[in-house]
């Protein structure tokens, strides 16, 4: 049973997220928040396949790269408007994800993790490959132009891009929440928890797994497109293996199998490296590692799980009689 407060909370949060930064944040901070939104969508995609379906992927940076390049190439070669590149990017990434989901049928657990990891390692080199160089711009990458607000809206480019990304992200988060709450979502989680039992219940595991991979790749690909528009530049070096690892870190820190988790994960991967850099120039990587370990130690179920626990405790202390049956949101 969901009460009115918990139903209204996400919407209140969303409106605050849209309005407050426009009033308070500088253009630079808006850019950072846009990147948080982008990473949140990318991690959400990863969460669908890894968190909800139990297929570990260490290669989602590759889908992010495909999305980014589709947008960059369309804007660069054909002067396509930025918004028109998103559906194309979504379709292509879903297709690529579906195809890469096929080997996932035969490979479980760690083997799948290694296979996708190999994909992440190969991505920068594939982007430099000479057959596609005319399209991808090779090592030099592609520089694209930042869009202005349409219809003469009174926003500057950064404000508009933030609102645009936030709108796209909201739609995608609603879609994902609906997906995992429904029949398919239950099938995804059943497959994750006990594949054999799920199959006995009549779930077509092969189809489910490949489709989950496709949807996941689509989400992360759209994030790549939004990221390319915000950064205004794509190059092979932007999509190194570290991107995939970073997304994975965001997933785990935010909270595996949680719809709100990716937002926390995105905040972490956007801001914690900057904090680490402030602490030490000599070894920012080590500082980052220590912060990461501390987070995992204190909040083993991620930030979302930690906050959920706090909320549950608070609710229980107010109304001890209410049974806790609410599904996560």
């Amino acid at each position, binding site marked *: 049973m969901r009460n009115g407060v918990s139903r209204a909370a996400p919407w209140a949060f969303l409106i605050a997220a849209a309005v407050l930064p426009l009033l308070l944040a500088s253009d*630079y901070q808006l*850019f950072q928040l846009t990147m948080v939104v982008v990473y949140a969508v990318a991690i959400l995609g990863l969460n669908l396949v890894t968190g909800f379906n139990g297929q570990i992927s260490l290669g989602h940076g590759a889908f992010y790269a495909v999305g980014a390049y589709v947008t960059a190439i369309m804007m660069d070669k054909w002067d396509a408007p930025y918004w028109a590149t998103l559906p194309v990017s979504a379709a292509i990434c879903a297709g690529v994800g579906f195809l890469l989901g096929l080997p996932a049928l035969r490979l479980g657990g760690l083997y799948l993790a290694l296979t996708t990891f190999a994909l992440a390692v190969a991505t920068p080199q594939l982007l430099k490959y000479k057959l596609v160089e005319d399209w991808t711009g090779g090592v*030099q990458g592609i520089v694209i132009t930042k869009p202005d607000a349409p219809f003469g809206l009174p926003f500057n480019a950064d404000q508009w891009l933030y609102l645009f990304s936030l709108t796209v992200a909201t739609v995608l988060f609603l879609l994902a929440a609906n997906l995992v709450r429904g029949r398919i979502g239950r099938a995804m989680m059943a497959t994750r928890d006990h594949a054999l039992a799920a199959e006995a219940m009549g779930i077509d595991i092969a189809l489910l797994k490949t489709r989950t991979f496709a949807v996941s790749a689509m989400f992360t690909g759209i994030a790549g497109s939004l*990221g390319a528009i915000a*950064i205004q*530049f794509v190059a092979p070096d932007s999509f190194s293996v570290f991107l995939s690892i970073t997304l994975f870190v965001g997933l785990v820190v935010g909270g595996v199998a949680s719809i709100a988790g990716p937002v926390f994960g995105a905040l972490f991967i956007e801001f914690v490296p900057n904090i680490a850099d402030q602490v030490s120039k*000599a070894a920012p*990587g080590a500082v980052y590692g220590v912060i990461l370990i501390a987070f995992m130690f204190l909040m083993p179920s991620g930030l979302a799980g930690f906050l959920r626990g706090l909320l549950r405790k608070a609710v229980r202390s107010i109304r001890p009689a209410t049974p806790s049956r609410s599904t996560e949101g």
Partner: protein
Amino acid sequence: MHRRTLLSTIGAAVAAGTLPKAWATTVGVTATEIKIGHTIPYSGPASAYGVIGQGHTAFFKMLNENGGIAGRKINFISLDDGYLPPKTVEQVRRLVEQDQVAFLFNTLGTPNNTAIQKYVNQKKVPHLFLATGADKWGNYKEFPWTIGWQPSYRTEAQIYAKYITLNHPNAKIAVLYQNDDFGKDYLIGLKDALGADYGKLVVKEASYEVTDATIDSQAVSFQASGADVLVTAATPKFAAQTIRKVYDLGWKPLHFMTNVSASVGAVITPAGPEKAVGVITSQYAKDPTEPTWKDDPGMNEWRGFMKKYLPDADLSDSGYVFSYGVCNTLLQVLKQCGDDFSRENIMKQATNLKDLEIPTLLPGIKVNTSPTNYHPIRQMQLAKWNGKTWELFGSVIEGAGT
């Protein structure tokens, strides 16, 4: 001097109160401070470059202890980008919009600088002396706020070509290049300097992919073509293979090796020091491990600085020598600015360096810039591998064209 500082302080106070417009273009500069922005990978796969940032930080500390520039202290803000272009964009936007630096200095990495070049030129922020070997930072027409520093690959190739035409006018040249921007810059450089004779002198061009296993077949085809000069624009692994294969074939061309692959540890030792005898490369800075510079005044100045400000640093790391050289170039720009640290004047002075000598550059190499020359270092000296070290020979050669 004191009176001048006092006057400029009063001037600043008056300006801040009554004439904000007159100071509008001197972003990041107050009567007591100049803010400089910098990005470099302190973390991630390219974090070995981080020593350059540490060198810079130490240099500006020294400068501040010695009184700063025109009564102002340098506030050097150096941020980590992990060699990731998206992070560079974020950090540079922070430097420009939030920290409000006067200018950017020595930001590192070709893709990283490509990612920010358009933005900083739109914002008209001086983007000085980048740490990358690409040639495109000399494009003053399209990007008047961006200027490189070190000799580009293209300049280096021009220098080899000049030497060849001067000393071996009937050479038959073979070129091995990596099939990417790095390798292609060498082809362009050779074409610059050889001009119409390129087709006549170059008898064979062959490329390889970074993913290839060996360059054996290319080396064999070079020998078969009858070439007697080889120019190799290869990264260290392939450079070592080339040196060895050429030796094993019993082929004895005059072999020019890109200075990207002049490392003794990464190229010469794996190839075999005796097999590399006679290979020629080029240098522009003094090598800290080279005995020639043991008592060199310039290098002693650098060692003194290192001892005082970076006592624990590894003195054989050429990153610190690079840092000292490029910081000294900036120091000259700031000195030339006088008391006008507007962005326009900083850019004007950066593009008006005349015959500047830097203690860590090879003797005879001078830094020159002009509003139509955005390649500060265009001279190099050749060095030959004698079995033990790189031995400088001949005089300093200047690249062709602009």
